[in-house]
């Protein structure tokens, strides 16, 4: 503090050095192909991805792939900021539901011309619906990595305690609801049905979304020109979800993560949850005396699946000097064994499916069945998906609280939803 001027000068000098440094780094548009690749993924605690990257670097001398892991909660933010700033990963794992937001802003470039479409990357090797969900505006701006389908999971032991017999592969709304109510009637510490109400994507994929689809409804028409929330099917879906939600804790309405439900499910205090296999309570969380997994699909007419998975995209700012290393990396990553190691979910490629031996136990059958038969999005991908998901979430919250009738809430949502389609 003795020499303020010195400090000031030092600060200025530091600022100038930084500016100069940034100038030199950004102007280096060298034409020579780069052998370095920066990959961003959401944090992977299992270490599988890091192990794969290390193996890639060993088996591909001369190439250096660096992996950056960012906590899931901050991942979308970090990607959005990096894309906006034009500085960040050369290739990134992107949430399938966030992808349209990025794609519509021109943050991503067509990936097939860079990595090719031969071998494992052949169009026919991908599940068609997933492949399509990784495209935007007719351009293949990403490749699907994996998917997650969701079903109604229930605890056979808890339902038995409440006097409910196990469900079959499909079951009706009425049976589900009566089971949930019986579990709730066991006492205050029991929840018939537990859900995540404070997260927009859960609303689309696990709450209101599936039940509207299961009722034969949709959020909007196929042409994506008009919302269809004012239909009796949508109302039936929301009403059913409202009744189910009433058998759970009130605080579910603002819960933002599934862990509360998963823990209660494993501990024998939650009767049902609508979720993917990744949220089946693990052995250390489920008490053997209180938990036995059962799985079913509501209503027998249709089966339903969300993409719920991840895609792989190359930001627009990545220049051609990186294309060689990108092609090498992506082709290697989609080798059946590698794609299985890269994701903990169901691989988006058919060759990956065959290699996913860890997911071949009988309890996964129902998920594969849905994936093979009808993997579709509850909400068609479009530029305003986030706004629509937020809207659906707040509508669902109003419906559950009963501050207005379901019909009135949906009529209001219809108008607002239409506004997102005309943008």
């Amino acid at each position: 503090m003795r020499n303020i001027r010195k400090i000031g000068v030092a600060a200025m000098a530091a600022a100038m050095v930084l500016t100069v440094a940034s100038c030199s780094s950004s102007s280096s548009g060298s034409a020579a192909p780069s052998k370095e690749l920066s990959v961003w993924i959401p944090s992977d605690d299992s270490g599988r991805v890091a192990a794969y990257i290390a193996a890639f670097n060993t088996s591909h001398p001369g190439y250096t792939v660096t992996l950056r892991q960012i906590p899931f909660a901050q991942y979308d933010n970090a990607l959005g900021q990096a894309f906006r700033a034009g500085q960040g990963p050369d290739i990134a794992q992107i949430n399938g539901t966030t992808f349209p937001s990025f794609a519509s802003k021109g943050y991503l470039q067509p990936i097939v011309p860079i990595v090719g479409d031969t071998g494992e990357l052949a169009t026919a090797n991908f599940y068609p619906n997933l492949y399509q969900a990784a495209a935007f505006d007719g351009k293949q701006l990403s490749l699907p990595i994996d998917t997650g389908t969701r079903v109604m999971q229930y605890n056979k032991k808890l339902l038995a305690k409440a006097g409910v017999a196990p469900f079959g592969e499909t079951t009706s709304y009425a049976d589900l609801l009566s089971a949930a109510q019986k579990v709730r009637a066991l006492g205050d510490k029991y929840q018939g049905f537990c859900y995540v109400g404070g997260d927009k994507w859960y609303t689309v994929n696990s709450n209101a979304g599936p039940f509207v689809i299961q009722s034969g409804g949709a959020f909007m028409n196929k042409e994506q020109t008009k919302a269809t929330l004012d239909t009796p099917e949508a109302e039936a879906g929301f009403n059913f979800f409202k009744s189910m939600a009433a058998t759970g804790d009130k605080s579910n309405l603002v819960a933002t993560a599934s862990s509360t439900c998963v823990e209660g499910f494993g501990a024998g205090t939650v009767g049902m949850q609508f979720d993917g296999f990744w949220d089946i309570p693990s052995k250390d969380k489920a008490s053997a005396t209180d938990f036995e997994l059962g799985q079913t699909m509501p209503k027998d007419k249709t089966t339903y699946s969300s993409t719920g998975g991840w895609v792989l995209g190359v930001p627009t700012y990545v220049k051609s000097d990186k294309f060689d290393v990108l092609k090498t990396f992506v082709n290697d990553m989609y080798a059946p064994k590698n794609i299985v190691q890269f994701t903990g979910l169901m691989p988006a490629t058919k060759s990956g499916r065959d290699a996913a031996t860890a997911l071949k136990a009988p309890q996964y059958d129902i998920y594969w069945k849905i994936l093979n038969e009808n993997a579709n999005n509850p909400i068609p991908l479009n530029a305003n998906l986030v706004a629509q998901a937020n809207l659906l979430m707040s509508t669902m919250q109003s419906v559950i609280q009963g501050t207005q009738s379901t019909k009135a809430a949906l009529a209001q949502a219809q108008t607002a939803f239409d506004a997102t389609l005309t943008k």
Partner: protein
Amino acid sequence: MITAPEAPTIAPVAVSRHRLAGAIPNVVLSIVFLIVMVPFVWVLLASLRQTNVLTGSSFDFSNMSLANYIRVLEGSFPSNLLNSVIACGVAAILSVGVSASAAYAFSRFTFRGSNALFWLVLVVQVVPAVSMVVPLYKLWADLNLFNNIIGLGIAYAGLNTAVCLLLLKGFIDDIPRELDEAAAIDGCSNFGTFRRVVLPLLAPALTSAGIFVIVTTWQEYVIASSLMNEPGSFTATVGLQSLVGQYTTDYGGIMAGSVLTAIPIIIVFAIFQKQFVQTVTGGLKG
């Protein structure tokens, strides 16, 4: 202890004639004290209880252990705390340093545009931090300051410079001009006057402003969560919030993390509360 700001010499207001009336303030203070303390005690107890035992309903002294603290401290939390210390330190030194010189100029010199520049400072300090996150990210990425704790300190320094400048100008205005003039007669340059006369007198104010910057910076969340996105580079507040994401139902761990985040700043406050209170109250006599 807080001595009454600016007025340690003021005698207590005349004793009330009515004993009952005299007791009312103590009762009121006790109630406010309870309002403040009940959450604290509850959190402290919750942080000591075993995971999943917490129902949130009662003050329960059973099942106490330090397990939550040990679990949290085994993670990246200690390095998060260290990051916060570094960011706060950089912010305090840098912002106090640059604003002392500017405050001196505003207080002592007449120059073209001084009013306009001063108004600019006033405007700058009301900009909400959340609105600066996106452009700052871009700038920080361009300058390779991203995920750099010194870089975060520089951002914090910038965000606190306007407030520091206003606080310090208030203090310098109070230093009698005659002292400067005496020094000038003795042949001191402006800089010499600043260094020999103003700075020594200003030392307590510099400490106070620095403490003020540290207290506000320690609390900051939104800028840090944007400019630092690797667990190793988190600050304490961001680290705490990532605990919340990690173990939603682990109230014990979250409460232990909350206590650990709060304690350092409470200690700083306890040591420097006199300066802190003076800064807050003295800087506002406008």
